[in-house]
């Protein structure tokens, strides 16, 4: 009976695993099929994989969108860490008036529908000629990343015992020195996790990129959306673009897997 229960349990888990991973397998196999094979019904299970879609993708201008995505994902992240780390340290350590209020304000920015801040950026960018530029995208992504970075880093700083700071202070270090030389090296993994989470969110972001960019600054998701909008959809090409867009985030997932819940729930369920 017990053995039977175990087998049943693992079978159920297997079903779940197939449910979650089948789409990954499916888009991948479409991306390495010739168009005729890809659209065959019933599906062709045995075929010779081809890189044709990826070759076509490389010459389709999609690479430029990937480059745009890389810049739009990493630059705001870097800025958010640069500005956010001292602030997070301040909120975690220093006795400041209204510290609580600031912290909860920062948390609340994650709860407000993103579209609410888009109106302002849409209008001001139109006026300033920042529509369809990466600079514009960097600014609006910073608006998302900065609160997230401060909040997450604050959690990581709070895990460093106060005594560490106090010992350094006795040695004659100032606060700034303590942060740079003592505390930051101790939360190195926290910094990496925070950066990767920001990159993860920026990389997938769609609403802002769709509204604020066009041919020049469009990110990979927007380029895929435009592929989808054409009359005759090239599913093979689209799948290869999907795989290219998916790959970095899956790598990030495996790097930060232990911190995923914390990042996604803002550390509420540490």
């Amino acid at each position, binding site marked *: 009976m017990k053995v039977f229960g175990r087998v049943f349990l693992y079978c159920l888990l297997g079903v779940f695993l197939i449910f979650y991973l089948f*789409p990954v397998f499916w888009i991948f196999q479409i991306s390495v099929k010739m168009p005729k094979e890809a659209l065959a019904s019933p599906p062709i299970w045995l075929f010779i994989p081809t890189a044709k879609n990826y070759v076509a993708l490389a010459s389709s201008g999609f690479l430029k969108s990937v480059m745009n995505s890389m810049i739009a994902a990493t630059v705001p992240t870097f800025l958010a860490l640069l500005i956010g780390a001292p602030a997070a340290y301040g909120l975690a350590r*220093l006795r400041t008036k209204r510290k609580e209020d600031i912290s909860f304000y920062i948390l609340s920015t994650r709860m407000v529908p993103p579209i609410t801040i888009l109106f302002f*950026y849409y209008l001001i960018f139109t006026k300033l000629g920042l529509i369809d530029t990466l600079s514009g995208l960097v600014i609006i992504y910073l608006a998302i990343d900065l609160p997230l970075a401060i909040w997450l880093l604050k959690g990581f700083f709070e895990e460093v015992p106060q005594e560490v700071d106090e010992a350094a202070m006795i040695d004659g270090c100032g606060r700034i020195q303590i942060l740079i030389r003592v505390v930051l090296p101790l939360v190195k993994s926290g910094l990496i996790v925070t950066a990767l989470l920001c990159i993860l969110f920026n990389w997938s972001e769609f609403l802002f990129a769709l509204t604020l960019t066009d041919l020049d600054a469009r990110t990979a998701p927007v380029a895929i959306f435009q592929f989808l909008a054409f009359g005759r959809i090239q599913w093979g090409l689209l799948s290869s673009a999907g795989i290219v867009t*998916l790959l970095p985030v899956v790598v990030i997932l495996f790097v930060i897997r232990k911190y995923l819940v914390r990042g996604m729930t803002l550390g509420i369920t540490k």
Partner: protein
Amino acid sequence: MYRQSKKAVSALFIGPAIVILVAITIYPFIHFIRLSFSEWILISGTASFVGINNFLAIFRSSVFWHSLRITLIFTVCALFLEHGLGFSLAVLLKKAKRSGMIVPFLCIPMVFPPIVTAVVWRIMYNPSFGIINYFLSLVGIPPQSWHFGMKLVLPSLIIIDAWQWSPFVMLVILSGLNAMPDDIVEAAKIDGASGLRMLIHITLPLLKSFILVSMMFRLIYLLTTFDLIAAMTEGGPGDASLTLYYLSYRNAFKFIKLGYGASISFILFLVTLGISMILVNTIRKKA
């Protein structure tokens, strides 16, 4: 010496971030509030204050009530399906030995860029070559039109959402299960609590705060689902999947009725504000 400069130091640390946050998040938000009480005049590029006129117009329009209904159906169904799947999966994983290895694989859907999610599911749902219709045909079910069909469009979107986000629920619940004190579970077992009774009387109450957290997060993000709707259906067919969020986007950025679009988002904002306040209170109680 240090004490005197403490204020200056904290200003130096926190100040720049606060100034930037005010400029890039608070100011745009205030601008949004103002816009939702204005009418956007395209020709002159100015907003003229119209009081609550936008809201009156919204409440009089039938498309608002229609999309409110769509939003509620989509949100509530997706929320329950996600939690049903996520919860069952978490309980199974807790029971299985050495399941830690497969957890990251189960989380892959959650990091899918939503646009890629749309591509995959449009391929699988496709009425002519989709694999799902093929599987259905094997068991004698006629082909369905999925996201192209009036009746099936919402269920189709709900399935996708559950696929993508039930792993999130699973992660939160699993961290709750792992935080559960072993002695309580052991004591209940010794007292002879069986599987189901254990679930209802021990596991669920202990997990309450975790379930609450995942429900709140999902609720807020479900109400503001954009990518999936934009890339799968654009609110169609007809207006069968027109959610409030998409209605707001469509009015504001497709029809350039910015004031009207902002007002719809303002209503949505008030709803999410209510939900986040409950969430913040929950966290404060825990802290």
